[in-house]
């Protein structure tokens, strides 16, 4: 690369740097509202109040307490309203499906199909509902059995999709717990997953999260052991995530 080209690219990158604009205010407000639900400090901390444009909130000291309470009330009300509007407008029109892999046994099929109508959500509340549905699965599946078994093998597409979605919900619950800084709960979700799907389609992802959760709960030795077992199984796209979890573990 010649010097003139290098200079020209630097000028281009400068132009692109100038292209960095403030994030949309409505997106900032939505993210703040979502964070406030998960992080109590985002509600309590004055710096988290009234700074949507990035300017510090300066409250008069004599009226500070009253204004803080008022602002907090307005913020919570705004957050609830924002979440409601967000939930209404942003209703997902599509759902994410993981591409499954071929190698697994029929053990996971024993959990039975899960009603397709209930598979789109990934919230913890829905996951609890999902678990209840899963416990009812055998009785739900029985009347459907003649239809599905008569035409398709147990590994038919619909069965696999149902199993995959049931697995995904358990893992979504674990992932949400990890992100919210609750590795204990994530670990318990993952144990539940492992018991239910010992040869699960998403076992690789579950094992990855298990390493992260073990590191998170302060069990570095167990995390390292789990990471070693993970790396011995097969090359994985999750290897960097596992390594990162181990390297940040105390």
């Amino acid at each position: 690369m010649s010097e003139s080209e290098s200079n020209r690219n630097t000028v281009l990158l400068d132009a692109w740097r100038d292209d960095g604009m403030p994030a949309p205010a409505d997106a900032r407000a939505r993210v703040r509202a979502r964070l406030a639900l998960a992080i109590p400090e985002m509600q309590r901390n004055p710096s988290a109040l009234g700074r949507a444009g990035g300017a510090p909130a300066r409250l008069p000291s004599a009226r500070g307490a009253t204004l803080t309470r008022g602002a907090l009330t307005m913020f919570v009300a705004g957050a609830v309203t924002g979440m409601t509007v967000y939930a209404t407008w942003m209703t997902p029109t599509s759902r994410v499906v993981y591409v499954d892999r071929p190698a697994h046994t029929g053990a996971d099929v024993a959990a039975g199909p899960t009603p397709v109508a209930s598979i789109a959500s990934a919230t913890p509340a829905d996951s609890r509902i999902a678990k209840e549905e899963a416990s009812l699965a055998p009785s739900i599946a029985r009347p459907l059995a003649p239809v599905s078994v008569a035409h398709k093998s147990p590994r038919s597409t619909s069965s696999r999709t149902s199993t995959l979605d049931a697995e995904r919900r358990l893992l979504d619950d674990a992932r949400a717990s990890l992100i919210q800084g609750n590795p204990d709960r994530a670990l318990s979700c993952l144990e539940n997953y492992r018991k239910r799907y010992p040869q699960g389609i998403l076992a690789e992802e579950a094992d990855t999260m298990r390493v992260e959760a073990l590191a998170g709960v302060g069990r570095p030795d167990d995390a390292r052991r789990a990471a070693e077992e993970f790396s011995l199984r097969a090359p994985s796209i999750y290897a960097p995530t596992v390594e990162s979890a181990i390297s940040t573990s105390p």
Partner: protein
Amino acid sequence: MSATRPDIGAIFDEYFDFVWNTLRRLGVRSDDIEDLAHEVFLKLNARLSDYDSSRPLRPWIAGFVFRVAADHRRLARHRFEVYGKTVEFEAPAVPADERLQVEDERSIVREALAALDFDRRAVLVLHDVDEVPVPSIAAELGIPLNTAYSRLRLAREELATAVKRLRRRSEEVCRV
């Protein structure tokens, strides 16, 4: 290790734009940036007690942004939207003759960057655009320093090649 836990509200106020723009520059689709920014701050909050206040905050945050974008990219390869279009990272392609001069230059850089390998692109964006020092990038991404410099060098070379190619194409389109 920090004795006092940094204030997540202040971090949000100060760095939200940085997180947003870096996710965009790393090629995350516009529709996904908001969710990923949310995830970045959740992860930041979960790790705040690990933050060493003797280190600059910006590279530390940049590390989270990179990992979240990289994880998203890996997952995006393994999924598809049933009723929608396939998930893809953004690579804008506006006809050259419809662009203004400045926007034209920016579009060329965006397209050229979109063609780069993700890991190299991350080092280039963090260093040349966000001005994070290479040693900090290496530390936060967990890669050897030499690897970081190597990625930066290769990214600059690839960028130069891609820009040259896009300029040629743009000029050909203008001539037609």
